[in-house]
């Protein structure tokens, strides 16, 4: 069983939901990331989602776009991101790590070489935003060699037939994009999400995590009651950026981000236990 499947199984057994924070690797500084990841785990994160900076992040709203730009200004490459994963693993062998990024850096490195290096670093899963099921077969074959989970997206526009196809190809969990739009958009509808998540569950055995538009303990709680996990990205990235902009050092950035994750953890736990 992969680390991700194991983590979801543990959570299910104890009646809990996964809290999955997203940060961009190398933002605001290269040295921020690994301590930040540990701090997020300390605050209650179950899985860490690490954004791989890309020059053309087409699915991102403004907050995460500028985070990618900051990380690229720090010259953060995919290889370096894998280096951060390896460094994190030296202290933490339990927490699953998911990389979220775009196809081209992986394509440039080569699928086989990426999969090998990712396994070596201790990576658990990859989500490539611009690789729908139709395009993912070659990459998937390489990831499978090392039991790295391939996380696929389901969106509000995904047909039933496509959900079935995605269920066949995905492993680890399914990532439901809660809205039509980019990351950090403001129009999350918990009722609609509930209906869709129920539909996905009927067609797919994998856990379903929900992302896009979850920004605080209240929105996280409203989604946690209907899903297996919640992803919080833009709000966290913004908080880290604000702290750094006010002169906060890496420890201050980590503390601020951890505080938000702790609030979300508490909100989610309270919502599912009541």
């Amino acid at each position: 069983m992969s680390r991700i499947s194991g983590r979801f199984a543990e959570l299910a057994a104890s009646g809990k939901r996964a809290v999955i924070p997203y940060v961009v690797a190398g933002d605001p500084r290269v040295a921020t990331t690994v301590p930040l990841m540990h701090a997020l785990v300390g605050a209650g994160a179950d899985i860490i989602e690490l954004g791989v900076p890309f020059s053309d992040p087409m699915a991102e709203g403004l907050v995460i776009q500028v985070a990618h730009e900051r990380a690229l200004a720090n010259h953060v490459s995919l290889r370096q991101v894998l280096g951060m994963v390896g460094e994190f693993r030296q202290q933490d062998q339990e927490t699953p790590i998911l990389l979220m990024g775009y196809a081209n850096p992986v394509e440039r490195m080569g699928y086989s070489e990426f999969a090998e290096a990712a396994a070596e670093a201790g990576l658990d899963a990859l989500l490539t935003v611009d690789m729908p099921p139709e395009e993912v077969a070659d990459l998937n074959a390489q990831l499978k060699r090392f039991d790295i989970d391939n996380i696929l997206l389901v969106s509000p526009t995904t047909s039933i037939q496509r959900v079935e196809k995605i269920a066949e190809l995905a492993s680890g969990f399914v990532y439901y994009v809660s809205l039509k739009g980019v990351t950090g958009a403001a129009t999350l509808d918990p009722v609609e999400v509930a209906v869709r998540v129920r539909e996905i569950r009927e067609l797919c055995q994998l856990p379903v995590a929900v992302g896009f538009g979850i920004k605080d303990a209240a929105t996280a709680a409203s989604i946690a009651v209907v899903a297996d996990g919640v992803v919080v990205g833009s709000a966290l990235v913004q908080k880290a950026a604000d702290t750094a902009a006010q002169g906060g050092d890496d420890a201050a950035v980590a503390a601020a981000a951890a505080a938000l994750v702790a609030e979300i953890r508490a909100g989610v736990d309270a919502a599912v236990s009541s």
Partner: protein
Amino acid sequence: MDITEKLLANTPDEQGRFGQYGGRFVSETLMFALDELEQVYDKLSKDPEFQRELDEDLAHFVGRPSPLYEAKRWSDRVGGARIFLKREDLNHTGAHKVNNTVGQALLARHMGKKRVIAETGAGQHGVATATVAARLGMECQVFMGEEDVRRQAQNVYRMRLLGAEVIPVTSGSRTLKDAMNEAMRDWVTNVDDTFYIIGTVAGPHPYPKLVRDFQSVIGREARAQCQQMCGRLPDALVACVGGGSNAIGLFYPFLADTEVAMYGVEAAGLGLDTTEHAAPLAAGRPGILHGNRTYLMQDENGQIMHTHSVSAGLDYPGVGPEHSWLKDIGRVNYVSANDKEALAAFSDLNRTEGIMPALESSHALAYAGKLAATMTPDQFIVVNLSGRGDKDIHTVAEVTGFDIEGVSQ
């Protein structure tokens, strides 16, 4: 590889692949919209009524067919082969772009969409989109890099006069690629009521195919005009390549005529030996951007690189996937012309023919002049004069150090 009618008819394949290029690399949210567009287009492209509507618009709104004009004085100047210009600059709105926007706007109307969006570099595609939107009474928003808004102020104003909203894009390099990112972000957000009119033969399947089909009117006309005027097909075709829609439009109907040589001219900017150019086929390598796999200008980490060309319309780090395929199978020769050569060709055509070419088209002219000189007077070349250069006079004045504002004093 043998280029047969059968091969061409099956390219792209069902997955939108031209060899290993093309495909559909977009986020899941857009997949249903691309499926829907593909189905509607498959149906309408075989529907005689739709074709009749399209032909009527091309004849009476765009002003087709565009003339094939022999540039005799310029040919005499450069020597060698005779040079004919396919006058896309005479189309309504002044470039080939409108051939495609007329077609996509008809698709949008058939799909019941009330709003269209577009990306634009030089502004020609934005103007062509704003034009068809005005005519069909659709809301129109055009995404344009802030840097291009500055370079192409006149086209920005034209779009506004046509009732479109121009949204300056401030992310990334602030040029065409970033405008396309932003248009994709808008589309994913408003996918229910919005039709994205992509301006070139790039993007996810079926865009490279449908834009090619709409632009192929250029080559079909040129083929018939060559037969009529010269009694045979040309020895060579030359067109500039940014995304590559005018080039595909000219080349496509000739691809199976293997006796016709083809040259796609990329922008070499300050030179291919610098990083200041926009020639992915000459100096890039395959990768994935904007929904398709194709040659890209990218660094060793797979980040898309900044590009440079004096012409905003060629200032793009990718190229249509069909060009990548045609390069690999050797059917088209991809060459380049730098800023200086393009500016010289711009000036030469003005002075010898009384025609002001777009800076994009000037790249094709620059290479055609060199090519003609190596050929004989019994041979002839067709150059796609893809657009007119009025939009570029401020750029030319700036580069050549001429003070337009001070001209009246």
